[in-house]
Each structure stands twice: as structure tokens, then as C-alpha cells.
């Protein structure tokens, strides 16, 4: 006991105590923090708000969020320079990378082949449902077909494209950057499904035409010399629901002369060849799931994960 009480007494009459006291102020930072910490507990919201205000803008030290304008300026300057340099490096890398690419052919085509398949008309999905007696139910399909086939008008084709020799790949050598010729694919080739004779593409009779197109792949030669043929069957259901399908042109083949495709920069007027499927006798008032697939060498049409690879599944529902 004697120790501390004396110590306490000594404080006042010691010549050095004043000086020492100052030492302590400096040397015991923990203690001061303790006090502030203790005070924190009893703070009101008003105090907190005031403190927040000071933090946001301290007029005495002229700091915003605890930093002076100079400090903020330096930091912003640093990050500006830093990110500019990074952006520069990014841009440079992208530039170099793009330089290595050919503008006409992508470096790799392994992910895009073998080709996928799409149909027209395409509205919001793969169910084509209409009632023959109600034109407004099938008119959108007809409009879609007309719109799509506009590029295949005989006149347009004759004007832009050349006639090619059927049954042979139309290989065009020469410089890669040269513009490539495209073969004519006239709408009239689709005969009953061309929309020329029957502008409703059979929809008004309950015998809808559906166009099938193979995805374009640069340099791809489908069928390896034998034209790829299309066939359709009922998918998982009564085979008799689908009694007759007509294919145009030919037997539902994609002529070799339309291949290979040279890319949109050089093969400017290229129009994908089509196969029209005329469903002349399909069970009415019923959902008929139909799978149309490509058949040919190198074509894959039975991949579970990709139901649009070499085949397409759609549903016909034709009402009265």
C-alpha cells in the first residue's frame, strides 16, 4: 500500500512531474483510445450524425472523408494514371490479337460444325399451330415466310448471283480477299412452297409449308460429295399422324453447288439453300411432334445435348 499512495502524493511536489506528465500523454496512446472507446457507448444518434458530418467534411482540417484535397488529388491522379496504363495495355493486347486474325476466315471452326438446322416460319418457338378457318391464326406464319423469301425472289437472284453447275461443289480459288460469286437459289425452285402460286404456302388449306435451312459454316462441304438429304418423321408418337410430306427442290436435298461458304465479307450475296417441306397430310386437331433431320456423311443428327444439330424438332397443330 505504501508504495502507491506515496506515489500519488509525490506527483504534486516533484519538480519534474509536470514534464513527465507530458511524456505520459504521448506515451500512453492506448489509454486515450480507451477513453474515447468508453465514450462511444454513450453516444447519441445526434453525436454520431455530427461525427459523420465531420468525417464527410471537416472544415478545420479541410478534409473530406478524412483526406485533404491534395491527398485525394494524388490518389485520384495515381488511379487515373494506373488505369489509363492498364487500359492501354488491354487495348494493345487486343490490337495485337486482332492483327493475328484473318478478316475472312475465323481461326477455328471446330465449335460451329457440323451444322445446325433452323426452320422458317419462325415466330416464338417451334410450335406451328393454326386453324384453317381462321386466317388470323396462320397469317403471321405466311408473312414471316414471305419476308424471309424476299431475298430469294427470282429477279433478285438473277440480278445478283450466277447460275452454277449442279451436283458439284462451287470452289472458288484465288485470293482470299477477292469477292466470291454466289449461286442462284430461286424461290421458284420451291414450287408449291414458293408462295408464288399459293401465296398462303398451303396454310389456308391446312397443308403448311415449312422451310428448312442448314447453318452456314465457312469452308464446310456437307455430305462429302453426296448431297445432304432431309427427311421427316413423327417424333415419339403415332407414325400415322404424318402421312405425306413433299420435299422441294429435288428430293429434299441441298445441292452441292451452294457450298462451300466463304464468309460474309467476300461471299456478300450468298443465300443459304433451302429445303421446303410440304406437309400435305397431317392429322388434324392434334399436336404432332415432327423431327426433320439432315442425312449425309459428316452430319451428326443424334446428339442428345444439342437438339438443333443436324435435326430440328417442331410441333404441328392444325385445326379446322
Amino acid at each position: 500500500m505504501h508504495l502507491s499512495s506515496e506515489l500519488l502524493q509525490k506527483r504534486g511536489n516533484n519538480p519534474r512531474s509536470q514534464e513527465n506528465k507530458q511524456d505520459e500523454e504521448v506515451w500512453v496512446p492506448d489509454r486515450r483510445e480507451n477513453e474515447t472507446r468508453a465514450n462511444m457507448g454513450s453516444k447519441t444518434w445526434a453525436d454520431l450524425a455530427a461525427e459523420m458530418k465531420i468525417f464527410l467534411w471537416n472544415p478545420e482540417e479541410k478534409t473530406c472523408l478524412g483526406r485533404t484535397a491534395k491527398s485525394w488529388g494524388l490518389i485520384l491522379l495515381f488511379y487515373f494514371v494506373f488505369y489509363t496504363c492498364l487500359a492501354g495495355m488491354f487495348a494493345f493486347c487486343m490490337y495485337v490479337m486482332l492483327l493475328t486474325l484473318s478478316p475472312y476466315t475465323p481461326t477455328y471452326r471446330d465449335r460451329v460444325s457440323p451444322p445446325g438446322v433452323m426452320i422458317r416460319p419462325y415466330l416464338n418457338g417451334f410450335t406451328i399451330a393454326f386453324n384453317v378457318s381462321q386466317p388470323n391464326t396462320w397469317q403471321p406464319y405466311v408473312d414471316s415466310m414471305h419476308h424471309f423469301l424476299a431475298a430469294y425472289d427470282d429477279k433478285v437472284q438473277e440480278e445478283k448471283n450466277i447460275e452454277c453447275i449442279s451436283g458439284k461443289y462451287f470452289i472458288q480459288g484465288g485470293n482470299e480477299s477477292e469477292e466470291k460469286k454466289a449461286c442462284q437459289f430461286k424461290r421458284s425452285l420451291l414450287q408449291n412452297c414458293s408462295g408464288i402460286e399459293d401465296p398462303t404456302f398451303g396454310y389456308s388449306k391446312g397443308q403448311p409449308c415449312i422451310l428448312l435451312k442448314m447453318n452456314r459454316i465457312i469452308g464446310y462441304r456437307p455430305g462429302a460429295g453426296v448431297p445432304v438429304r432431309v427427311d421427316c418423321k413423327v417424333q415419339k408418337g403415332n407414325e400415322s399422324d404424318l402421312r405425306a410430306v413433299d420435299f422441294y427442290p429435288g428430293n429434299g436435298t441441298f445441292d452441292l453447288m451452294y457450298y462451300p461458304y466463304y464468309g460474309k465479307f467476300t461471299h456478300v450475296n450468298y443465300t443459304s439453300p433451302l429445303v421446303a417441306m410440304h406437309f400435305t397430310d397431317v392429322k388434324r386437331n392434334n399436336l404432332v411432334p415432327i423431327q426433320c433431320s439432315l442425312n449425309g456423311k459428316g452430319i451428326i443428327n443424334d446428339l442428345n445435348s444439342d437438339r438443333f444439330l443436324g435435326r430440328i424438332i417442331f410441333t404441328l397443330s392444325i385445326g379446322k
Partner: protein
Amino acid sequence: MKSPFCSLSFSLSFGIQDDHRLSASELETKYGTSISEGLSSAKAAQVLARDGPNALTPPKATPEIVKFLKQMIGGFSILLWIGAVFSWISFGIQLAQGTVSFIDQLYLGVVLALVVILTGIFAYYQEAKSTNIMASFSKMIPQQALVIRDGEKKELPADQLVVGDIVEIKGGDRIPADIRLIFAQGCKVDNSSLTGESEPQSRSCDFTHENPLETKNIAFYSTTCVEGTATGIVINTGDRTIIGRIASLTSGVGNEKTPIAIEIEHFVYLVAGVAISIGVLFFIISVSMRYKILDSIIFLIGIIVANVPEGLLATVTVSLSLTAKRMAKKNCLVKNLEAVETLGSTSVICSDKTGTLTQNRMTVAHLWFDNQIYSADTSEDQTTQPFDQSSPSWTALSKIVTLCNRAEFRPGQENLPIMKRVVVGDASETALLKFAEVILGDVMNIRAQNKKVAEIPFNSTNKFQLSIHKTDDPNDERFLLVMKGAPERILERCSTIMINGKEEPLDSEKAEAFQTAYMELGGMGERVLGFCHLYLPENEFPDTYSFDTDSMNFPTSNLCFVGLLSMIDPPRSTVPDAVSKCRSAGIKVIMVTGDHPITAKAIAKSVGIISATSETVEDIAKRLNIPVEQVNWREATAAVVNGMELKDMSSQQLDEILCNHSEIVFARTSPQQKLIIVEGCQRQGAVVAVTGDGVNDSPALKKADIGIAMGIAGSDAAKNAADMVLLDDNFASIVTGVEEGRLIFDNLKKTIAYTLTKNIAELCPFLIYIIASIPLPIGTITILFIDLGTDIIPSVALAYEKAESDIMNRRPRNKRKDRLVNEQLAIYSYLQIGIMQSVGAFVTYFTVYAEQGFLPSTLLGVRVNWENNAINDFEDSYGQEWTKYQRTYLQWTGYTAFFVSITIQQVADLIIRKTRRNSIFQQGNKVIWVGIFSQIGIALILTYGLGHVTALNFTPLRFQYWFVAVPFAILIWVYDEVRKLFIRRYPGNHLHPIFLSKENITNFPISSLLLQAGGTRTCIIKTHPHHCLLPPYGDLLPLLTKPLLLECPVCAISSMGSPHDGVKEFHDYEKK
């Protein structure tokens, strides 16, 4: 202050029945037992069934299921659960809408839940493993008790004892229950584990005190019988014993959160805050960009998953347990993993003296004969004694030491080193026996040759011990009388003194010399014994003389004084070094002991707790020859506080003392005062480590930030209350523990910095995906594969990193300032390295898409069509058409490429995080290679091995894409090397906040402070062998401690540069 001990003695005395007052026969009837026959087995079984086994109920553990659930919802888990629930909700909505194609959401939700559960199980397993170590430890020695039952003596496990059993105890046994003695012979018990008093107390059958705690006829559970034998009736078992009651009181002292738990919580809040605010921000952005709410929720999940370092908490657990293992090898057994780091942030150690700082055995330290003091070797493994043994006085003295001694070695230990042999006898006699054995060789043989004919053992009234022997000299028929005892008493009985083998009359001059030596040895805190002898004249005491010790028919005065021997419990040889390490590590070592202040001070001085130059108030008074009251108490850096003084002090006065003295010894303290001291230190904001062994220490151990129990001397209650157990009871082990703790804190910082960096590279894809509508660059599942796959081993490898500078040369971290994750670290990781990584990964991403036909310009804004399942003729930049699945597959290729880029850049990140200041060329670590190879190996397996498992979203990647991000990896490394160079070259630069160096400033080794002398008036602080810190250094001032300043020559800390309040204060501060 509310101490559990306020009510202790009341409740304890209340609890003990009146058994100490009852006579033996009354006890027999009370407990239905018989002193000669004991209980019958049937009755014992009956009582056992009623009272339960005689063991302390372990402290109520949290139920395992609660612990498990805590792991499930703790930390980031809650965020991930939110993610999972959102996934399921969005799946539910889609299901209700009839879109079945979104199985992905269900799948993602399941994966997230699985991640939480698996990491939870892992953390739980780790936790359980370290608890099990402890459990096995306490079960090591089953205690046996000798019981009389059915009239037979039986050895039974102590936990089978019941009230009323008659037990027999002998020296060396642990008392198996609370026992009322009915027979005792020379029985002494060591109650130190209960009361903290180290002196053995005698026990008898007499009722000596009203208070059952004071009376001599009760022996308490878990105390030890030091010598003698006793028989007693068991009156309390298990939790009803005194010890049991104290143990249950201990559980009332709350467990505080460990510093590392606080740090991790802080870190979790920080990251969760970032995750949630970015998530919500982008949720709002995406909603206002007219994304569907459902899509926005999916984005939110992605952002949360990208932001949460899923694997980090598991990594931290592994790192901590690795360190715990390392510490266990160094004899620190850690019970609670988090305590590993607590030791590292310790700023005050309150240490026991006996056993921890000292060897816990009396050892001869000094001798005085021929008017001269000789020192003896007190190290642990003394084999010879170096002092001059040629004097004939020594021969005489050694004979007395050998003969006048009742201690004996237990037989069968001839092969053990002398110091390790077990001795039967009290502490001083043991010390003398071993001392003699070391110098003279076979003591027992010498005793046999000098046959003892009579003996008076030591007792407290005459304070001496005497024996009479035949001599081994066949020509000498005289008997030799040898005597030892309290020096002043011995001197009283002497008339001559032996100088150089010759008896000289004991004149006042020689008596004065004796007094000086006695005072000197006593002043060193040593226990001094005097030795004298007398050859009995042959004519008066012939060979056949029969000595009678009761009538004392032989002379006991006018003897010949031979010399003094002083003994002390010497400090362990490793302790002074450890204490000085603590000092340079900024850790204050406070000694708290029940011993006498003089002894305590002597030991404190010899181990350096009180340094050689510092003085207490009393020392100054003595030096200046003024009364203690006139001393300026501020000049005294050391203080020895007596427990009696402490008792009357207010907590404020205690604070004054703790604050104002750097070297403090608390002597004569009771164990409960330890609690007060610990609380005092904690009020100063210190992280306090406490060592203890007794039961009464357990509240202090529990109260301390880290309680350290002694593995050898410690009681079970102490071990239960402690966070750590020192297997070798050695203070030096604490210091190695501190070192490991500090290292792991540093390394965890590195681990976290490493882990946080790639979060940005995981997050940016989502942000850009939302804003620029590009195909998603990286999937949620892929992110999980980084966080829980490639990144785990490297982050653990960082835990093997060695210290960069001497970590034991800096102050303990300031709990409130040196955070595990601070602003700088987060900003540097997020805004600098993280952004670089993202840029590198995006370059790879765009390269993959461009080479497949989608130029960057095409990709912008394609998201809606890209993700439309119905569009199967999606046109790329070259006019080719893609099905949805082909696009998705390409997207997965993108994921893989992004993943690979992050992995490659994380290698660079790992390399830069290895060190925070030093260049990579300055520091190697082989484990880091394991990290790098594992990272790349796992990435290879994922891409090529599992590339065909579509559920994992990996595809076999073209080999060249592995190298696209390499320039960025190199950039990261070079950038960081430059940063480190900058920090080393220009410490204290104000640009440092950008470069993550504030923490470096606060952690610089302060012991290397150099103040330039003389007129230049600059202060240079050495931070590195080649670099100095120049003003302004305002941040550093709080770190300069007073003793450090005093070390400096003429101090001229200048206020050059930016003036700082503190600097002015110290302008022209002069060394006293």
C-alpha cells in the same frame, strides 16, 4: 470488482459439513462405515449409484450439434445460403412459369448448399480434432486409491470412491477425495493447487479450526501428500469436493472472444459488406436496365458467389492447425485453435515463478567457508561443481552435508542422471543430497561407512538437525557430531570456527564476517543453512557409549562452525534469454508469485524481469540514502508489489502501477489476486497471457486472453480453464509460441491478400456481363472451382512462409490498429492487383471468342439473343451460324479460358504475396512450389481430365490459351517488385497508403532505433539494414517507447519536415 472469490469461502464452508468436529465414532455412524472394515461392496455400489463417480464433471461443453450448426451458419455461410435460397426461388418461379430449361438454377442452389455443408463439416472436423487432443491428454493417467472395503485393502480407480470409504494415503500420493483424517503420522500435504501456498502443511487427526478450510484434520481432493502416511474417511466426492466447487465457479467467468476471432469477424463483415453492397447496387442497375427481376436475382447470386472467398475460412483453420501442430512440437499444446494467434498478439505475460521461471527444485547456489563465498552451478544438468574444493574446510563441510541429512534416493535409479533421480525427503535436504552426490559420488555408501548412532530430526522449536556418527577412519575412535540448521541458531552453539581446516576461536571479527555473508546470501533471496560439527572426545564417549536423544547426553554447544550453504529454486537456464526476447518483442513480463518479495526480486533480477540497471523505489532510497517517501517514484522503472499492499489498492492505484512501471513483480500474492492483476492489465488494453497451475488460478486463466496451464505441475482444473498447455512447464516455450503466433498472423494476412485478389477477377465478369451484355465470361460453378479448388493449397502454402524480419523485434500488434485485413490491403488487392488480373483474364476471354469467330465488337450487347434457346442460327462476325448448344459450349470454353487465366495470374499473385516487403529473390520457401504446382495441376485436371463432364462447365482448352495471360502475370509480379522496392527505398512516403505499406510502418522493428547524436538534429529510424526512415514520421511516434528513448545518446528528435505534436514534446529531450 466482482470476483468469484468474494463468495467462495462462504459457500465452501457452508458446503463442508461439520465432519471436522465429529469424532471418529460419530463419523462411523454418520456414514455407516467402519474404520477397520470399511464399507461393504454392496453399500459402496449403492452410494456410488446415488452420488455418481468421484470425478469432476468436465465443464459443460457446447452440444456437438450446436457447434456443428454454428459452423453451418457462421462466417460467409449465411451469404451462401442466401445465394442458394435465391437460386431455388428463381428455379421455383421458372418452374411455375413452365420453363423447364432452367434446371441450372436448382443445380447451382444445390452446389452452393453443398459447399456450405462441406466447408462446415471440414471446419467442425478440424475443431473437433484439436479438442480431442486435449481430451486424450487429460485421460492419460488414471488415478488409483488404496481403499479398505469388506475388511480388505484394495487398489481401486479413484473415481470409484464413495462417501464413507476408508482410504490410506502415503507420501507422494494425490488425495483422491475430500478426506477427514482419522489417523495420521508425519503427514504433510501440499495445498498449493488449492490455496497457492507452496509450503507443505502438516495434517493430523485433531480438530484445530472452526473453518473446515483451515482445520488440520481434512485433506482436500487433488492436493498431494508430500510425506508421511494417513488414513481417512471420504466425506465428499466428485463435484461436491472443494475443488469441484471452485471448478464450477470458474465456468461463471465469461469466455472472451479471441483476437483472431475478432479479426476474422471484422474481415467477414468487410467482405460481406462489399459483396452485399455491390450485389444490391447491381441488382438496382440491372432492374433499371430492364432486366427481368428473375435475371437480376440470378446476377445477384453470381455477384455474391464471386465476392465470397468460400475456401478462405477453411484455409485459415488449416493454417491455424498447422501452427498448432508446430507449437505442439515445441511443447505448447493448444486447446483452442484460435488461441494460436492470441499468443502472438500478447502484450503482457503474467507468469508464475515456481516451476515456470524456475526449475521447481531447491538447489545449492552458494557456499561460504574460509570467510569466502563460493557460487555453485545451478543449471539443470550439473555434473561437476567448479568451485575450489581443495580446502580442508570443504572436506569437513561436505561431511556434515552428507551425514546430517535424512533424504535418500529411491532405490533402483542408479542409471539416471543425479538431477533426475527421485528423492524421499524435503526440498532442502534433497538439494543437499544431490549436491553432495554430484561432488562426492556415492553418498549412501559414505553414510554406510559412517554409521549413524543417534539422531535428532529437525523441528521448528530447536530449528536444527543433529546426528552422531562413527567415523570411517579406522584409527579414529571418536564419534562425530554433525549439526545443521538456521545459521544464527547454529552460530549460537559454536565457540570456534574452522578456517582452512583449522579451528580458530570465534571472535567478534569472525562473527561479523559470518553476519555479512549471511546477510548477503539472504539478500539474494536464498534459504541459508549453517553447518557445524564436533568430534566427541574419545575418553568421554567411548565406543560403547549409549546416546540418548531425549536426555541429550552429549554436548550441543561449543561446537565448531564450519560454513554456510544457501539454496534457491534457480531459474531455468533458458528463461533469461526468453525474457529478453519478450522484452525486445515489446511484451511486458510480470511475475506473480506467492513467494517472499526478496526471493521474488532475486529471481526476477536473475532472469531479467527486472533488468540489471533498473531500480525499485526502495533501491533508489537505499542508494541515495533517503527515506523511501522522498524518492521520485517516476525514476523507478521497476516495482515489487506485495500482496498485502495489493489487497488495499483501488483499481485506479493498480492501474497507476501497471502503467508507470515497465518491470513489475507481484510477491506474496494469493491466486485470486492474480485475477485482479489480469483485469488490471486488460484495462490497459493489453492482451494478457497468464500462466498458472493451481486450481485457484483457473478463474485468472479463464479471464486472461490466453490462459496457459502447466502440463506437468498443473491441476486438471487449470488445464480445463486454460487455452493452452505447456507440456514442459517452461517459460521459454511461451516465447516460441509467441513467435509462431506472430508468424501465423503475418501469414494469414498474406493468405487473405492472396485470396481476396482474385475475387475482383471473379466479380468483374458479372459486372461487365450486366453492363455490356456480353456472353457470361465465367460461371458460378467455375468460380467455386477456383475458390475451393486451385486456390486452397497455395493459400495453405503461405502459412509455411518464414518471417520477413525478426518478428520478435517488434511490438505486439495493436488490437485496434493492426487489423488482419485493413483498408490498404483490401484496396491494393481489389483495385490494383485484382483489376490487373481481370484485364488479363478478359484478354484471354476475347481471344477465345475472336478466334472462334466472335470479334469483340460483335459480342457487345448480344446477351439476350445469345442466351435465347430458340435462336439456333445465331450469326457470328464472319456470317457463320451457331446453334444454342454450340454457343453454350463456346461459352464454357470461355469459362475455362477465364479460369485458366485467373489460375495463371494467381501464380503470380502467390509469388508476390509470399513477401510483403522483401523481394522474391531475398526469400525462398519450398512449400510455395507445392502450391504453384498443385494450382496448375488441378487446373490441368479440371480442363483436360474433366473437360467432358458437361455439368462442370469445363472444356478441353487449346493449349496456347494458357499463355495469353502470362504477360499480365509478369506485369503483376514486376509491378509488385517495384512497389516493394519503393517501400524499402522510401519508407514513410506519403504515397504509401496506395501501396499497402502503412502496416509495414507499424510493424517495423523498433529495437533498431538509432538516434543520431550531436548537432545534426535528425532522427533516423532504422527499418532495414540498408534503409532508414527519415522525418516526417509522425505515425511512428507512439511506437517509440520510453526505454528506447533512454537508450539513445543525446536525443535530438527534430521537428523537421511536418511538425507533429509529439515531436515538439521531445525536442531536446535529454537523457537523464
